[in-house]
């Protein structure tokens, strides 16, 4: 079994109002010096596949087809 982690983040230049609100909340809690905050998503997956190269190709296809909206988001695939 292969364990993988996919991280989906907003592309540069795409407005992130949620990140902005978190940024304000952090400064409200007294955490000074926090610059820009961008919110993303993390997916942990378990795959029956044992071939890492094959798993990586599958994971990329999963991102392109569903897990990320590539109009606004980038993704990174990590295999444990």
């Amino acid at each position, binding site marked *: 079994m292969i364990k993988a982690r996919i991280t989906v983040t907003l592309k540069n230049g795409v*407005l992130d*109002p949620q990140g902005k609100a978190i940024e304000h909340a952090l400064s409200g809690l007294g955490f000074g010096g926090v610059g820009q905050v961008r919110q993303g998503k993390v997916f942990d997956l378990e795959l029956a596949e044992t071939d890492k190269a094959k798993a990586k190709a599958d994971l990329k296809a999963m991102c392109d087809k*569903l897990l990320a*909206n590539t*109009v606004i988001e980038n993704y990174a695939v990590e295999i444990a």
Partner: protein
Amino acid sequence: MKSAVVLLPGLNRDRDMIAALTKISGQAPATVWQTDTEIPDVDLIAIPGGFSFGDYLRCGAIAARMPVMRAVAEKAAKGVMVIGVCNGFQILVEAGLLPGALMRNASLKFVCRQVKLEIANANTMFTRRYQPGQIIRTPVAHHDGNYFADADTLARLEGEGQVVFRYAEGTNPNGSINDIAGIISEKGNVLGLMPHPENLIEAAHGGSDGRALFEGALGIAA
């Protein structure tokens, strides 16, 4: 003229859409379920608003990958008219039938109010019963209506008249780029918009500004 309404778990404006199409066309639309792989021969397919699949992952993302949406894409490729309202618009962009993306409202708040809409292009099947530049009223009710497209896509949409509806007179409720409220496909048969024209079709709704959209699309005399 015949119509069909796509049904998915979590939609909640399906009855409004069915009622509007029934009242305006004089016949009840066919309904197609998420797992259906065929859609009957109709002139117009409507994807209603709501919260399909609980808005999980991204609004419209799961719905856009259901079998029925492959059937919608096939019909759209053949030139059948498709309208997606609110969540229906989100589903159309997630399915790649319209460009861009609909993001969380800039205010981070769910907005439920009436807005003013400018008819930015009256030369479409859906807007031919309106005047260019006409301002109409329609309700909006959404949390993720903040339209975004990259600069090239936006320039193409604006240049080709694919921006059909724009929030007018400072009523942009969601921070949408260029005040975009609704766009149409390059071929002019797939329309997506955040406002709810189906909720303003008769006096009991407090106005009928949305009625002409369906009359135009279905070719029905006003």
